[in-house]
Structure formats: C-alpha cells, structure tokens
C-alpha cells in the first residue's frame, strides 16, 4: 500500500467542482478506463487541496487534477521531486463579485472594503491580492485599509447575503451562485486581466515516480484527456447532462441546471497549461511570500505528452 | 422538649416497601441524655433523622421546643459515625463554617473556636487538615463543630462506633464533661448497651420490623459511672431484652441455619451480647 505503485493500477485524484469538468466528464464517459486498457483506474475525490497534495507526496496518488498554485507549490516545496504538470484542463472561471447595490464601479472603490477569498494563498486569493496591488491598494497586513478574509466559499455566500462582505473573488460555480443567490454583480472577470482572456484554473499533474516508471501510461492518460476535451468542445449538451450525474456520484447534490449552464459559460476547457501564465502566477505568488523563492517553476512543466497529442 | 407523637415511617425502594418506624411516641425533657439502642436496622437512625429534620414522617408529628420540625437547622446539631468534616477546610475553618451557618456574629468566632477546640484538646491542631488527623481526633473536631454554635439539642448517631476502645473511653469522658457543663439535650444512638448505660439518663430500646419502642429504662446512677455493679445491673437487664431482638434478626439473615443456643451467645451481666464498651 505504502507508496508502492503497481503497474496495474493508476490512481487519479480530482475534485467534485465545475472547474474539474474535464475530469468529471471523462470519468462519466469511461474515457480513461478505455485508454488504460488492462490497467485499472482508481479515482479518489477530494474536497480540499491539502489532502490531495499530501496524497501525492505520500505516493498514494499517481495523477491529479488540481489548481495551478498548489501544483507549483507542490513542485517547489519538494525541491522539484514530487510531481510534474503534464497538461492544462480549464481556464477562466473566476471573478470578483461585489454587492449589486453597492457604489463600487472600479478598483479604486475597493479602498476600505472587506473582501473574501476561498483560502489564504490559493489561486483566487493570489489573484485578488495581485489585483489590489496593481491598482495601488494595500491590504490590512500591508498596512493598508482593504481587508481580505479567506473563508470557505459556502460561508462567503452566507456572508454576502447578510451584507457582511463587500465582495469576493471566487471560482465557479460560486460566481454564478453569488450573482443569483446573494444579489451580486461581477466587478472583474479574471479572464479580462490576462492576455487572450486565458489563464489556468485547473491543471493535470502526475507524480514523478509514476512518470518515470510508467511514461507510457502517462501518455495514454494525457492523450485520453485531450481527446475528451475535443469531444467536450463539440458536445455541449451532453456535457450539461453528464456533469450533474458525475457530481451526484461523488456525493454532491445537483445544482440547478441554470446555474451550471451559466457557470460553464465563464469556463474554457483546454489542455494547454499556458506556461507563460503559470510563470506569471508563480512570480506573483513569490512576491507575496506564498511560494519558496528557491527552485525553477518553469521546470515543473513536462509538456511532451500534450504537444504530441494535438492540442485542441 | 422533644416530642415525638405517633410517628410512622416507610421507605420505598426497588425491592419493596420497608416499615421502618411504626407509631412511635416519645418525649425527651430538656437537658436529658437519652440513648437509643436496638438491633441493626430497627430504625434508630431514622428516628434521629426525624428529629434532625433530615427525614419527614409519613404520619405523626415531631416537635422540638414546641416548633414542628420541617427542616434541619443549627438548633439541632448532628454527629455521625463518620466525622463528616469538610476535607477542604482546616480544623479551625470547619468549626467556623458551622458558626457562619448558624449566623453567629463574626466577632464571636475567634473566641468560640478557641473555647471548643480547647475543650476537645485540639487547639494545637487548629490549622491541620482532616486527613492529617486520626479517627479519634476527627470525631473530636466534629464534636467541637457541633457544639460551637451552641445548639439546644445534640443528636449523635453512633459517633464513637468506628473508634478503638481506648479512644472511645477518652471521648466518653470528654462528652460527659461537656454535657454536664452545658446541659444540652442529647440523643445518642448506639449499638452498645454498656455505652448506653454508662452515658444515658435514659436508655430506650427499639424493637425491629417494624421499629417501635420496646423498653424505656431510667438509669438512676451517679456520675462518673464506674462502679461495675450498678452499671452491670442495667446492662444485664437490657441485654436480656435485646437478645430476643438480635435472635429475630439473625434468624432472618441466616434462615434455618440459625439456632440460638445458650452457649453460643455468652451472656451475663458484663460479658454478654453487646456488653462491651
């Protein structure tokens, strides 16, 4: 059991979130199982990032869909030994939502406000801090007057409703839920801050041990992933019916279809890990002290499999 | 005056109802030293608790100085077989706590504590804690605690039963000394007929199942009571009655196995059942 990995199973981790739709759809379609042939697929769903990363470190997981910041952090903290990013999965799907009836119209109006992010040092938290900095605002910790409260998404919804928050930088489907259930309005769609409106929100990582021992399995996995993305691009209706099914299987109660529909509109699915954007994220994170300064984040990428599989 | 009239008391427990006292009537004059004896379970403690106000009678009435007893109060001090001292308080504080509960003005505490701890020869130990005292010393503190608030009635439930014979002898002397000096009414429960005769103006014997008064013997002897002959006369008289009751209890405990033979319970004026002090 212990960090031994047999050649006859691949253990894949994922999160029951909309931003993990490529993984969920692939599972529902049985794509990975097909691609792996005689090798068995074991999936593990997580509800929080640290457990997934700890599982990779512990050798209990071979591959995992995860956010870019945990992925880069996991790489750097292990001195480049734990994992590699082998493909992208999703782009976009995050936004700064503010109270609809508030007078906030631009970054300047955020001075003195209380804003939520999902977790200190996660992808959205970083985006929010970076956004404030670029607009010349300082957080309370930096001696400024903007207060950032990292808090669970569910609690954000609650607090937005109770008007105890002025805004929140959250991923989908929380953007949509804030709009519909908490009287929110989008102030910044994160895509607008990036070149080509593209930045990674979910990537596929594999453990280095797995990569070294079974590169052919990694290749099969990535190829299947890319094929699935191609399929998704042309089968939007099927995606909409498969997603809730997959979520339900993982113990998630189905969201209303309208919410799913609308949320999917703000997410793009792509196997491109967007190296430039990733490096930008890494340098932002380093500036804020969320990532070790040592190590080369660019070496976290191993793009030989995506490149050879015809990126959609 | 303590007046108990037509008092009955039942206890209901899981195993059924138990008739502890059956229309008991008893008057105790002020300043009298009354001893209650009787076989185990005959209701001695129950009777004492009724006077103390710790139990309420099912029927009948208990009045102390013409006031019906409805609750315990510091006018009736109680001493138990176990000293029931408060382990978290020093000897002095134990006595003071009694004074406080009896609403004795604080200015008097110092004097009273000293008086009574000296009376029981424990002034040296005023700052000791309970666990540092021997059993006899503990009972002496309990006695001081009972006496310090100057109650009109002193109720004692086998206060010396767990002490060794020597210590008990010493405390008998101290108790009689104190009683003589303060002229309190004392009700003293004991298993020990000799102890009862040595101490009491009156020895009341209870019979068992249900508990009722079987004998009420006036002990007309001068104190201190040392002359063996006189004490022995009373002890013998009461013992004879008690033996009948004890046999009754034994028979219930042991069933047919119990056969009272003249030889197996050595009897006689000084060596008999319960005759020892």
């Amino acid at each position, binding site marked *: 059991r212990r960090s031994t990995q047999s050649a006859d199973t691949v253990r894949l981790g994922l999160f029951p979130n909309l931003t993990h739709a490529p993984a969920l759809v692939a599972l529902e379609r049985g794509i990975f199982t097909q691609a792996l042939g005689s090798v068995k697929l074991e999936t593990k769903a997580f509800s929080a990032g640290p457990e997934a990363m700890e599982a990779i470190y512990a050798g209990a997981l071979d591959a995992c869909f995860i956010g870019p910041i945990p992925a880069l952090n996991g790489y750097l903290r292990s001195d480049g030994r734990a994992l590699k990013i082998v493909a992208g999965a999703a782009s976009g799907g995050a936004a700064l939502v503010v109270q609809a009836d508030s007078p906030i119209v631009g970054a300047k109006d955020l001075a003195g406000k209380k804003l939520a992010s999902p977790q200190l040092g996660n992808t959205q938290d970083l985006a929010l801090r970076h956004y404030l900095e670029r607009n010349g605002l300082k957080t309370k910790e930096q001696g400024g007057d903007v207060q950032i409260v990292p808090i*669970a998404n569910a609690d954000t919804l609650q607090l937005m409703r109770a008007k105890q928050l002025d805004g929140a930088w959250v991923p989908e489907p929380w953007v949509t839920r804030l709009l519909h259930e908490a009287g929110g309005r989008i102030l910044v769609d994160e895509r607008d801050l990036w070149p080509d409106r593209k930045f990674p929100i979910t990537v596929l990582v594999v453990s280095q041990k797995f990569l070294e021992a079974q590169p052919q399995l990694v290749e099969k996995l990535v190829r299947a992933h890319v094929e699935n993305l191609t399929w998704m691009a042309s089968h939007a209706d099927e995606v909409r019916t498969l997603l809730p099914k997959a979520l339900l299987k993982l*113990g998630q109660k189905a969201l209303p279809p309208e919410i799913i529909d609308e949320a999917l509109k703000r997410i793009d699915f792509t196997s491109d890990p967007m190296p430039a954007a990733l490096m930008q994220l890494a340098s932002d994170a380093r500036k804020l002290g969320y990532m070790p300064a040592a190590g080369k984040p660019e070496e976290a990428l191993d793009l030989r499999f995506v490149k050879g599989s015809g990126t959609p | 005056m303590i007046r108990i009239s037509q008092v009955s008391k039942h206890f209901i427990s899981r195993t059924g109802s138990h008739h502890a006292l059956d229309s008991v009537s008893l008057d105790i004059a002020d300043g009298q030293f009354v001893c209650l004896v009787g076989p185990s379970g005959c209701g001695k403690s129950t009777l004492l608790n009724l006077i103390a106000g710790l139990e309420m009678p099912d029927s009948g009435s208990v009045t102390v100085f013409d006031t019906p007893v409805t609750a315990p109060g510091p006018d009736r001090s109680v001493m138990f077989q176990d000293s029931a001292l408060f382990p978290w308080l020093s000897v002095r504080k134990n006595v003071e706590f009694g004074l406080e509960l009896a609403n004795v003005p604080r200015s008097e505490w110092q004097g009273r504590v000293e008086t009574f701890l000296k009376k029981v020869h424990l002034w040296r130990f005023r700052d000791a804690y309970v666990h540092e005292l021997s059993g006899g010393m503990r009972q002496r503190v309990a006695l001081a605690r009972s006496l310090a608030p100057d109650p009109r009635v002193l109720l004692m439930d086998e206060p010396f039963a767990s002490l060794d014979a020597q210590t008990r002898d010493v405390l008998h002397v101290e108790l009689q000394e104190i009683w003589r000096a303060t002229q309190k009414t004392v009700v003293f429960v004991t298993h020990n007929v000799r102890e009862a005769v040595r101490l009491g103006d009156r020895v009341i014997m209870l019979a068992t199942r249900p508990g009722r008064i079987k004998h009420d013997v006036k002990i007309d002897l001068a104190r201190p009571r040392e002359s063996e002959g006189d004490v022995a006369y009373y002890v013998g008289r009461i013992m004879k009655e008690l033996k009948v009751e004890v046999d009754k209890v034994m028979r219930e405990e042991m069933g047919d196995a119990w056969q009272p033979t003249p030889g197996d319970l050595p009897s006689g004026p000084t060596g008999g059942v319960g005759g020892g002090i």
Partner: protein
Amino acid sequence: MARSLWEGFSDGTILVGVGVSLRRLFIGYSISLIVGLPLGLGLARSKVLEDSLGTIVTGMQALPSICWLPIALIWFGLSETAILFVVVAGSLFSITIATTAGVRNVPPLLVRAARTMGARGPQLYFRVILPASLPGILSGMRLGWTFAWRSLMAGELLFVSGGLGQLLATGRELRDMSRVLAVMVTIVGLGLLTDVLVFDRLEQRVRERWGTDRA
C-alpha cells in the same frame, strides 16, 4: 426547518452515510479500546511506563485531528485504514488517560487482598484490577466514544468516501442547509442512542453490581 430536515433524509444518502460511518466508528473505537485499556492499565501500575509514555500520551491528547490527517496519508495512503487511523489517534489517548485515572482509583485494599490470595502478574491485572476499575474505565469509554465521533468527522474529510463527515462537508460546501441539518440531527440522535442504549445500560449494570446507586 422540519421540511428541510425531511428533504435531507429523503434521498437516502444519509442512511448510507450512517452505515459507512458507524462501521468505521465501530472498528476505530474498538482498536482504541483494545490498545488504550491495557496501555492505561500499564501506565497506572508502572512508574517506568508512566514516566516515559505518560507524558507523550498527555501531549498527544491535545493534538486536534487535523494534525493527524497528513500523517495518516503518509502512513496509510488513501485507504480506509487512514480514516481509521485518524479515529484511533483521536480517541486512543483520552481512553488511555481515563483508564489510568480509573485504575488509580481502585481501592488498594482490593489489590492487597487479591495478592494475599495468590494473584500475580496478568491474573492480578485482568481478573482484579481491570474489573475493579470498571466504573472509571466506563467513563473513559464514554469519553472515547465522543472523541472517536469527532475524529471520524475530521477523518472522513481525507477523501470522498461516503461517510457522514463527508456529507457534512459537502453539504456545507454547497450551502445545502437541509443536508447539514439532517447530518447534525443524525449525529445527535446516534450520540443519544448509544448513550442510552449502551453506556447508560452498562453504567447502570455496574452501579447495580457495585451497589453504588444506593448512596
């Protein structure tokens, strides 16, 4: 609220969750008992053990379950065992400490009496000291049960595996109050049920046997 409660129960996931969680609870708790009782016994009776292990046990007890999650993953990977480990780690130490206290309260006279009758070694421990400390051990077991419950809820967050802890977390994550409420009511209900059906009965029996309810 009653309606949302009903909704929470109606889809059956709660029932499944209860089954999964109870199984884990039962196994984890049993392990804690099997390890904790002898350990507590040993700590109470041996100065050497007490000085070495006693401190460690006391310190470990303060650790919240969240600290055990990474360790569980490293040692046991993504398996049932990892969840059980969190349950055991969360309840073992308090059971041990309570047992130690229970054994310390055994009247020394009973032990002396048994020794004069010839009891020695394991016989003394298992036939005399253990039953004599039963009242104290029972309260330790009760306590351990609470800790086991709470740790299980944390342990089930390791990965999605269908227990009540998971339902609670996802319910919270999705702001599905009917589910959260239903899980809470279930936990309280199960807690009360075990208390009444198991611990109260055991305690009642011990009290009757010991005669302490007469006091």
